[in-house]
């Protein structure tokens, strides 16, 4: 399975990532729809819970991550459909690039997309649920990045698999959601701590869990992804 | 003296705290276990491969 590598892994990742982001930029309409979908989700939570601002503020971290999670399924599902429409994945496979570069570029692209989405959602969440970021923007962005990476790595592998199966729209969330429950739990808890302050020093262990999750799934994805897209 | 008394009171409290009865839960649990095991065995029996071409004795 190992091919000769005329271009280095890193260079291939950069080129592929640039290509994906360019496609993302050229299909802005889809991107906008994604943003409004997640905003609507955020809004819907407040309707589902009712106008109890205390309750909303207490659960703000969880709602933010659920909105991001729902949006991520749409974003991830699209990331390989783009390739399938014109059979460009075959082209990528035949290119003298490592298959692992495809994984890294796709997963990084999805991470960038989700972090961007999260960066848009956080101010809205602050306004809508009446919370304030006690620990500051730095930890908030750090948790956002870690959480989005945790969704993107297994999400990319599963999206490549589900894309070629029957009932792919059901299969992707069915496989992904139970898998990332621990990451979701850790990200939501850590976000709540960042928002409400961390008197008992629990932020460290939740971030540690997120980092461990990322290490395992970026590693596994890197190793296993070539087998997923091989012929 | 007092320790003996304390021990007896403790034991009495533990005895009082014991959950009484609850056999309906036990029967429900064993029933579900046996039912699911037998149903699965049945489903395996229904799905058993039948050698139509080669095997003539069944």
């Amino acid at each position, binding site marked *: 399975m190992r091919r000769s590598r005329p271009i280095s892994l890193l260079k291939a990742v950069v080129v592929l990532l640039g290509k994906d982001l360019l496609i993302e930029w050229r299909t802005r309409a889809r991107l906008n729809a994604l943003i409004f979908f997640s905003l609507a989700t955020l809004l819907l939570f407040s309707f589902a819970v009712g106008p109890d601002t205390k309750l909303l503020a207490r659960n703000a971290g969880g709602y933010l991550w659920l909105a991001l999670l729902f949006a991520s399924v749409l974003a991830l599902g699209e990331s390989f459909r783009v390739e399938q429409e014109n059979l460009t994945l075959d082209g990528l496979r035949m290119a003298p690039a490592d298959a692992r570069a495809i994984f890294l570029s796709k997963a990084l692209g999805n991470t960038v997309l989700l972090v961007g989405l999260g960066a848009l959602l956080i101010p809205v969440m602050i306004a809508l649920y009446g919370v304030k970021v006690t620990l500051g923007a730095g930890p908030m962005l750090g948790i956002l990045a870690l959480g989005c990476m945790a969704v993107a790595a297994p999400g990319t*592998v599963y999206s490549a*698999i589900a894309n070629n199966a029957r009932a792919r729209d059901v299969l992707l969330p069915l*496989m992904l959601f139970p898998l990332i*429950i621990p990451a979701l739990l850790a990200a939501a808890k850590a976000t709540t701590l960042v928002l409400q302050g961390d008197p008992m020093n629990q932020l460290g262990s*939740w971030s540690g869990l997120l980092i461990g999750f990322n290490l395992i799934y970026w590693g*596994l994805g890197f190793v296993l992804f070539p087998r997923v897209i091989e012929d | 003296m007092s320790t003996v008394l304390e021990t007896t009171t403790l034991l009495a409290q533990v005895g009082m705290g014991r959950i009484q009865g*609850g056999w309906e839960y*036990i029967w429900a649990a064993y029933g579900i*276990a046996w039912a699911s095991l037998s149903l699965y065995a049945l489903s395996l029996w229904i799905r058993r491969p039948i050698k139509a071409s080669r095997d003539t004795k069944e």
Partner: protein
Amino acid sequence: MSGLMNAVLQYGSAAAALVVVGLGIRLGRKWAPVDSQMDARPMLVGMSVAALVLLAVGGWLGLVWSPQDREMGDVYRIIYVHVPAMWMAMLTLVLNFACCVSYLLKANWKTDALAEASAEVGLLFGGFGLVLGAIWGRPTWGVYWDWDPRLTAMAIMLVTYTAYMALRRFVEDPDKRAVWSSVVGIISFANLPIVWFSVKWWRSLHQVQSTPKTVDPEMALSLRVNAWAFLILLTLFLLHRYRIALATREAEVALPDALPPDAPASRDGNSTEVA
């Protein structure tokens, strides 16, 4: 009951279970393949009888012979089926993981078939084990679902493996199904420690669930006999399911495009009740 009886039950059940596992592996090699001419009926009957006898003895030990628990009264008797079921579920998950890794290293239909069998049988044991855990929770904690870390982690793993089985059902190409489900199996199993720690920490913020650990020797004997009985059942189920998986694969390979939509349909309806 005398000490002799005790020892006979303890070692007898263990020996019976190990013999059955050995026979199961042998039959899996010789009898399960589609072109096998082996007449396995005497052995299969013997194994099934061993399973039923041990299950009956285990049930009697658990329901009648074991004394009441100091705190739980009679209700604790549920653990004699709940705990072995959970053990078997864990065992099948490990087996499934081993098969997935082995398939990616060296493609082999038999490994793939065993992976399918172990996932399905594991879902069965895990599924009813979980329900039993919930039933146990009602009289002891007052609610069916208390977010006990062990039960919660098991529930998450069960959903994960349901997705694994769904994937197997949704991919028609046998080669791709085997590779992809192996990847998903490895990824799912790697989640086990993370799920465990996250759920444990998540719960510890609320309260620490203390489960009383008072195991009398009599209780240990009942638990052991039941666990061996379940191991025999597990072996039998795996063996038969493995044989079915091999036969299905044979049909798929033998008829490459004659009836692709029909061939999987026969399996579709049957394995759903497990989830």
